[in-house]
C-alpha cells in the first residue's frame, strides 16, 4: 500500500507565485523518503499540503489512502509532524507541552504519561521535563518536537531537519530511532533535509525538489540509472601529465571517468610512463551529493 501518493499536486499563492508545480510521486509504507532540496525549494509547502493545512491549487494527494482535502482530521490522527514552523509552547514545561498535545490527540492521561516517559527517556530529556521550554537549548527543543510528533504513535512521520542542531550523540540516537520505527513498526518517514550525507545514511527512497519542481524520484540505484552515472578514479600525485577528459577537484586531485577496472590500470601505467608520480588512487562512485547536483544542473557530472 502507498502511504503517500500525489498526482500533479500544485500550490500557488495569489495565482502566480508557484510554490509547488505538478508534483507526482508515491511512497510505499515503511519507506524512509528523503525529500531533498535547498531552503525555499517547496519542502515545507509539500508537508503542509499533505497534512491538509494548505489547500492545493491543483491535482490531488492522499495519505494512507485518505484524500488530503477531505480527511484532514483522520490524517492528523495517523501523522506526526515535526517542522521548523511548528514549535512548542515556550512558557510551558516539556512535560506540560506533551500533556497538552496528547490531550488534543485524544490520548488518556495514563497513555500520555507512559508514552512521554519512554520518549523523554530515549531523547534524553527526562531531567529537563519540568523546565520551561524557553530555557531549553535548540537541540533540546528539537528533541522535544520529535517527542511530540511521536507521542500518538503515528503511522506516517513528517520530519523537517530532525538532527539539525543536535550534538552527534543525540543525532545518532534520533537516526537509530527513525530506522527502528521504519523497520520494526512499518512507519513511513517523510524526511525533509538539505543534509545530503545524512539523507544517504538513513533514507531508502529519495526525491529531489528545486524551486517547487520535482527533479527526480526513486531509490539510489534507480536515480543512478536515470542519470546514467559513471564511475571515476581520483588520483593524487605530482607532475601528473595531461590526461584526456580529466578534471581537477577542489582538493587538487585529478578525476577521470572510467568504464571498467582495467581503465584504472591503463591510466596509472600511462601516468607513470610519462614521468608522473602517483601517491594515491581511488575509485569513486557517485554519491547522493553528486546525484543531487546532477539532477539540479540537469546534466551528468
Amino acid at each position, binding site marked *: 500500500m502507498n502511504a503517500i501518493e500525489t498526482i500533479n499536486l500544485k500550490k500557488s499563492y495569489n495565482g502566480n507565485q508557484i510554490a509547488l508545480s505538478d508534483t507526482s510521486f508515491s511512497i510505499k509504507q515503511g519507506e524512509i523518503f528523503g525529500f531533498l532540496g535547498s531552503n525555499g525549494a517547496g519542502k515545507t509547502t509539500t508537508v503542509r499540503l499533505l*497534512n491538509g493545512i494548505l489547500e492545493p491549487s491543483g491535482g490531488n494527494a492522499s495519505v494512507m489512502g485518505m484524500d488530503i482535502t477531505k480527511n484532514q482530521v483522520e490524517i492528523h490522527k495517523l501523522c506526526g509532524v515535526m517542522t521548523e514552523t511548528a514549535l512548542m509552547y515556550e512558557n510551558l514545561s516539556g512535560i506540560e507541552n506533551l500533556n497538552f498535545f496528547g490531550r488534543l490527540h485524544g490520548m488518556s492521561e495514563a497513555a500520555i504519561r507512559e508514552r512521554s516517559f519512554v520518549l523523554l527517556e530515549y531523547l534524553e530529556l527526562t531531567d529537563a521535563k519540568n523546565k520551561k521550554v524557553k530555557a531549553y537549548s535548540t537541540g533540546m527543543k528539537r528533541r522535544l518536537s520529535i517527542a511530540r510528533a511521536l507521542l500518538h504513535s503515528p503511522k506516517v512521520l513528517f520530519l523537517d531537519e530532525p538532527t539539525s542542531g543536535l550534538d552527534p550523540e543525540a543525532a545518532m540516537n534520533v537516526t537509530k530511532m527513525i530506522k527502528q520505527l521504519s523497520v520494526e513498526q512499518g512507519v513511513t518517514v517523510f524526511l525533509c533535509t538539505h543534509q545530503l550525507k545524512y539523507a544517504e545514511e538513513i533514507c531508502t527512497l529519495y526525491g529531489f525538489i528545486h524551486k517547487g519542481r520535482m527533479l527526480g524520484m526513486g531509490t539510489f540505484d534507480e536515480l543512478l540509472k536515470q542519470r546514467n552515472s559513471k564511475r571515476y578514479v581520483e588520483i593524487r600525485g605530482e607532475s601528473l601529465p595531461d590526461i584526456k577528459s580529466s578534471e581537477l577537484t577542489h582538493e587538487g586531485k585529478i578525476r577521470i571517468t572510467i568504464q571498467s577496472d582495467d581503465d584504472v590500470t591503463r591510466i596509472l601505467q600511462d601516468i607513470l610512463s610519462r614521468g608522473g608520480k602517483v601517491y594515491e588512487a581511488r575509485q569513486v562512485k557517485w554519491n547522493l551529493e553528486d546525484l543531487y547536483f546532477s539532477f539540479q544542473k540537469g546534466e551528468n557530472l
Partner: protein
Amino acid sequence: MNSIQRAMIIKDIKEVIGSKQMLLPMIIVPLIMMLILPLALVIGARYGVSGINGMDYMVKTLGSKFNELDNSQLLFEIGLNYMFPVFFLLIPIMASSIIGASSFVGEKEHKTMESLFYTPISIRELFVAKVIGSAVPALVVTLLSAIVFGIVMNIGGLLYFGRLVFPNIKWLILIFWVSPAVTVMAIFFMVFVSAKANTFQEAQQMSAFIVVPVILLLLGQMGGLFILNNLTLGILGAVFLVIDYILMRKTASGFVPEKLI
C-alpha cells in the same frame, strides 16, 4: 465543555501565568480599577463633601432622584452606580484582549498555531476551543474583580447607608449580561486582528480600538448626554451581542490555516 476545550483553557491560563508581559496587566488593572479606586471612593466620600467637581452635568441629568442624599452619599452613589460600571467594563475588555491576543496572534507569532493545525481537531473545533479557552479565564478575572469590588462597596454601603449595596440589579446586568458580551466581542476582535497582526504587541495596540466605545460611555455620562440605567445597560448588552454575532460569522469564515501560518 469537552476535553479539548478544557486542555486549551488550562494551556492558555498557564501561558498567561508564565508570561509577566500578560500577567502584570491582568493583575494591576483590576487592582487599580476595582480595589484601589473604590477604596479611594469609600474613604474620599467622607471628606469630599464640599462639591463634586466635574460631575455637575451628570448630577443635573440625574435630577431630583437623589435629592434626599447628603454629599457623601451622593458621591458614593454616583461612584457605585454610574462611574464604576464603566470602569468595570474595561476589565473584561482588557482580560479578553490580552488572552485573545496571546491565544490567536501570540500563537501565530511563536509558530505554535501550526502545531495545533497538525492535531486531529477540525478547524471549527479549534476556533470554538480557542474562543472558549480565552473567554473563560477572562470571565473569571472579571468575576473576581466584581467580588473584590463588591466587598469594598458593601463596606462603603454600611458606612454611608447602613446596609449592603452590592450587587444591585444594575450590577447583575453588568456582570452577567454586558460583560460576557463585551468579552466575546474583544476575543472576536482579536481573531479578526490575528489574520493581520504578526506580533502580540501589534495586536495589543490594535485592541485600543475596543476601549474607545467605553471611554465614550464615560465621557457621555460625565457630560450629561445620557445616564447608564438598567434599560440602557440591557440595550448595550444586546447591541454587543449583535456585534458578537456579526464578528463571529466574519471571523469564523476567515479562520483558516493559510492566513494564520
